[in-house]
């Protein structure tokens, strides 16, 4: 146990896995399929010193960010309107849910024909699921506003605009924050998928080339890089969320 106290367990298990990996890559039966841990890490290290890698990272994140912003900016007003109208809410539930559960990857072959292997295609692939997630979360949150609060505001003759901005939107905010948290992950995923499956620029495309050219060390290095980016982003979102919707810290969402 004293070893565990001195070193964080995560570090120990990472070391064990790297050692196992190094050992397995030397086995006869592996042939040249598995690059050794040291080769992969040094490939990752050299590629991080090249401008092209950072450009790919930048493009991947930028495509994700543009799609995210686009999806959110279209979805929030739509969700707000749907949440204000009972008929609007129930009319769209089935359609939105139907389109939400269909992953955007099914659109890639058709989008490739219409938009080609471009950044626009990647942005569309990101914005599509973001729109459905955010519209549904916003509408649900707006409907969830405390009815007593709304009655009280009506008694004080506070107008509809005030009700929306001071009661409805703050009440929807934790739901929107939860949606946004999911969407950030979805955005990086979408941008990578568009590159790997659809040939849009970025890390996904680099991964596709590395794999099809048989550069196994590069393939493993890019997958590790994607894991690191994913981890950094989810830690950032975890850190940022309670600071943005501070009035609901520690509550349901």
């Amino acid at each position, binding site marked *: 146990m004293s070893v*565990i106290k001195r070193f964080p*367990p*995560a570090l*120990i*298990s*990472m070391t064990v*896995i790297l050692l196992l990996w190094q050992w397995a890559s030397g086995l006869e039966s592996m042939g040249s*399929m*598995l690059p050794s841990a040291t080769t992969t890490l040094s490939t990752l290290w050299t590629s991080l010193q090249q401008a092209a890698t950072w450009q790919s990272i930048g493009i991947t994140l930028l495509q994700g960010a543009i799609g995210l912003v686009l999806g959110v900016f279209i979805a929030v007003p739509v969700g707000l309107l749907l949440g204000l109208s009972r*008929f609007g809410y*129930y*009319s*769209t*539930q*089935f*359609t939105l849910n*139907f389109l939400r*559960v*269909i*992953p955007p*990857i*099914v*659109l*890639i*072959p*058709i989008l*490739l*024909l*219409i938009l080609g292997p471009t950044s626009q295609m990647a942005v569309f692939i990101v914005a599509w699921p973001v729109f459905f997630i955010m519209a549904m979360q916003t509408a649900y949150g707006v409907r969830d506003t405390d009815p007593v609060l709304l009655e009280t505001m009506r008694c004080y003759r506070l107008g509809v605009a005030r009700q929306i901005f001071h009661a409805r939107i703050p009440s929807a905010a934790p739901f929107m924050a939860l949606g946004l948290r999911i969407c950030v992950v979805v955005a*990086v*995923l979408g941008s*990578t*998928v568009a590159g*790997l*499956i659809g040939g849009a620029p970025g890390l*996904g495309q680099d*991964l*596709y080339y*590395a*794999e099809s050219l048989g550069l*196994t060390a590069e*393939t*493993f290095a*890019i*997958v590790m890089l*994607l*894991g*690191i*980016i*994913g*981890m950094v982003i*989810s830690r950032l979102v975890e850190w940022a969320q309670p600071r943005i919707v501070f009035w609901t810290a520690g509550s349901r969402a």
Partner: protein
Amino acid sequence: MNSRLVRFLVGAWLPILLIWLWWTLSADSTNPYWPPLEQIWQRFLELWVFEQVPIHVLPSLRNLFIGLAIGVSAGILIGAHIGLSNLAARFIIPVVDFIRSIPSIALIPIFIVFFGLEGEMRIAVIAFATCFPVLLATNQGVRSTDPTLLDTVRALRFSPFQILWKVRLPAAGPQVFSGIQLSVLIGFIVMIGSEILGAGFGIGAFAKITADSFLIVDAWTSTILMGLLGYVIYLIFRAVERFVLRWYYAANKLEM
């Protein structure tokens, strides 16, 4: 009118309107990328009712089913055991966190290196990718069993094995199923992705090949088919969830 009919009509008018709009607006379309919906529909019936289904759909669904079965069982088993041991969790969870941060699609090239492009690769990558959401959800769920409940069954001298299978896992059920829901979605995405990258047979491969050879109507039919499949798989998941967790829905008086 009864309330079910009203609910159906309220939900149905929008999709019907959208399909009608698509049908009429595309009727005279000469744009090669947007063929008339009528043409797509006729081709859809020719291809998918049911001539090509045994070649391109059933193998895909079989891979998805086997992969999910392996991934979900492994996730539940490993997750439950990690959930019982703080020591194991401290070593394993950081690794799981890292692997889960990799976009699941990006695992496909690695599996291609080991398993080639055919069926085994597709099943292996689906099983691997779908394991982690279930593992984490089960770990969380098993940890958060009501302590009073645990004290009670300990007083009744349940064995640790019984406690795990009869108390902790059922109590974790709703959380485990939210993990499985994510796994089903990831499994479907990885299935399509592995077919597009792996080529050959499979619905994703069919979509990619027809789109690449400018058989645009065929590509549209497979896009629609993939969309419908995605929704049907979601419905099947919901039905299974409601059946397995019927005690939970009943106890909480949730709408079925």
